[in-house]
């Protein structure tokens, strides 16, 4: 038998075939599906809730008809009579008396709906003192919410821990199962084995998590009118969806390389996973040079909607946030690829020296 008998492509395909089965169907990895598809389920529940709420508003509108234009004519200091003259009887009315220091006040809260928005009018002693309008969800508002959830939950937690589960298992799991010798007794370079395992893990992670992203977007837009969705897609919609799917895939590639290396370098990958998570979490506070040695920095640069830090972030922390400009898209992809290749290089060096030592695992 000669070297020419063996094609490295066939070897990679052989490794991938075995590993894909493990990555997709391992009982040990069921929680990864929960992480990937849990958010889509929450969006679906939200969509069902919004749809039912809309139907409820439509029913209220039928029993208490109000026009949208009239709803927007309500101003502060209007009297109760003027409000009722414009909008009619509210579908819900709460009245109560509040005792003050000098004298008591009579309050009334009127609820109206035009079938889309909810208007809450607060009257004190027969005069409007507060107006609160709650819009029905719209795609612009939901896109901003999605951007925040995607960047602060999905990428940093779901994809991150999903990659911990998939990629650390590729070598460490086999050490624990005492089955790694199966691969090490095959005539292939360890780099080929590493590439096969990485590509298998990456294929599984990308399939699971991009499907999760796609389902979230589908669930999020499910309750909107088809016309609204079509308009969104013709605008920035398709571009945004492609960007989110691409960012998800790149997150799998970046975090995957890190956790593949962690599985080779550490007996207990939880420790490096915790350190990497902390490093990624404090990324916004790091100086520009250090920011670049992370995955999330490049991923954020590629997200179509920038998610601002939450409004309730303490002032002191807001001061500490480093305001580095995100790099252009091509540079972000290049930077992420460089980080990934460096980490895979370290993993390959470790794989070359890998030994079977099941007894100490």
């Amino acid at each position: 038998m000669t070297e020419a008998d063996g094609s490295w492509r066939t070897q990679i395909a052989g490794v991938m075939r075995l590993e894909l089965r493990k990555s997709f169907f391992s009982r040990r990895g069921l929680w990864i599906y929960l992480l990937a598809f849990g958010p889509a389920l929450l969006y679906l529940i939200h969509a069902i809730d919004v749809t039912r709420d809309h139907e409820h508003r439509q029913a209220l509108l039928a029993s208490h008809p109000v026009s949208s234009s009239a709803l927007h004519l309500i101003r502060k200091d209007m009297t109760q009579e003027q409000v009722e003259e414009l909008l009619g009887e509210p579908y819900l009315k709460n009245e109560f008396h509040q005792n003050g220091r000098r004298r008591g006040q009579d309050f009334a809260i009127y609820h109206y709906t035009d079938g889309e928005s909810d208007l809450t009018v607060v009257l004190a002693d027969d005069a409007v003192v507060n107006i609160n309008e709650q819009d029905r969800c719209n795609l612009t508002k939901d896109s901003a919410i999605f951007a925040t959830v995607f960047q602060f939950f999905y990428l940093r937690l779901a994809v991150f821990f999903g990659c911990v589960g998939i990629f650390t298992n590729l070598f460490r799991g086999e050490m624990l199962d005492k089955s790694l010798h199966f691969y090490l007794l095959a005539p292939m370079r360890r780099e080929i084995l590493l590439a096969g395992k990485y590509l298998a893990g990456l294929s599984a992670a990308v399939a699971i998590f991009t499907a999760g992203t796609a389902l979230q977007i589908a669930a999020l837009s499910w309750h909107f009118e088809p016309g609204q969705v079509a308009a969104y897609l013709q605008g920035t919609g398709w571009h945004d969806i492609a960007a989110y799917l691409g960012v998800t895939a790149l997150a799998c590639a970046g975090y995957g390389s890190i956790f593949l290396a962690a599985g080779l370098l550490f007996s207990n990958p939880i420790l490096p996973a915790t350190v990497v998570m902390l490093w990624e979490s404090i990324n916004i506070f790091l100086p520009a040079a250090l920011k670049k040695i992370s995955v999330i920095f490049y991923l954020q640069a590629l997200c179509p909607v920038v998610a601002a830090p939450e409004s309730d972030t303490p002032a002191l922390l807001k001061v500490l946030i480093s305001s580095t400009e995100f790099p252009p898209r091509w540079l972000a992809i290049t930077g992420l690829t460089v980080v990934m290749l460096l980490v895979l290089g370290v993993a390959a060096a470790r794989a070359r020296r890998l030994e079977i030592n099941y007894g100490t695992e």
Partner: protein
Amino acid sequence: MSDDCVVFDNVSRFYGEVLGVNRVTLSIPPGITSLVGPNGSGKTTLMNLMAGLVRPTRGQIRVLGIAPDDPQHLCRMLGYSTQFDSFPRGLTGYQLVASFLRLFGFDRAKCDRLARAAIERLRMGEAADRKVAAYSKGMRQRIKLALAIAHDPRVLVLDEPLNGLDPLVRSETIALFRECAAAGRHVIVSSHVLHEVDQISDQVILLSNGYVVAEGQIQGVRGEIQDRPMQVLIRSNRPSLLAARMFQQDHVVEARLAEDGGAVLIKTRDADRFYRALNVLALDGIDGIDIEGVMPADDNVNSVYEYLIGGEGSR
């Protein structure tokens, strides 16, 4: 270093502060070579070293001129049946062997042909499409052997290959080793039971506490230790009847049921006669006795080595 031999040149391997093997210098020629020693003597470490699964702390190894840290060349001519019973999950016996061959870069047709040939050679054809996870100990042992021989290697390294095999398969497996050796290949077998391998070996290497204490032809030694009773555990569907049958033999000094009730522990003074009697029983199936597995259970093996070390002179 000879390109025809498996050569260890002053090889040591330590696991932290624990000794695996120390200062091993060997040259293993073609033919059947047995590594014999009690548990923990360094047999598996020596085998792992020649297969490249562990690296030497000191010294150099060459397998037919190839260094074990060159797996893409080494593993084409070396097949290793390890002591580990774990395999990638969810595969049938055929899928396991064929998947392993795919890692050699062979095309599907070649993988299929080689896998089926290896499986048939180990008489596993009927079980080939069953999941490995459902295999018995003996079947697992055989599928490991099929994995090791599937690519027709020049060097076969087999860690305790006869463990758990029933007498019939045991003799077929030994015939396979002999066939490979006759074809000029290296067959390196480990065992902690001297009797098990000394009849089939061209050369025996005795190990104790990580050191090679003797090597060469040692058939003569067997005669000297024959007066020491040997213990064998036999798994059977009718252990009580088997115990009664075996106890009728004059060389059997003790026969008692194992704690789990599915096996019988036999103590014999004459291993040759014992195995002959067992083979007759297994082949004829007398009284419906079905032998499921035979496993040496000699608690006294350490004393045998102490005896040998003293007799041959330690290094």
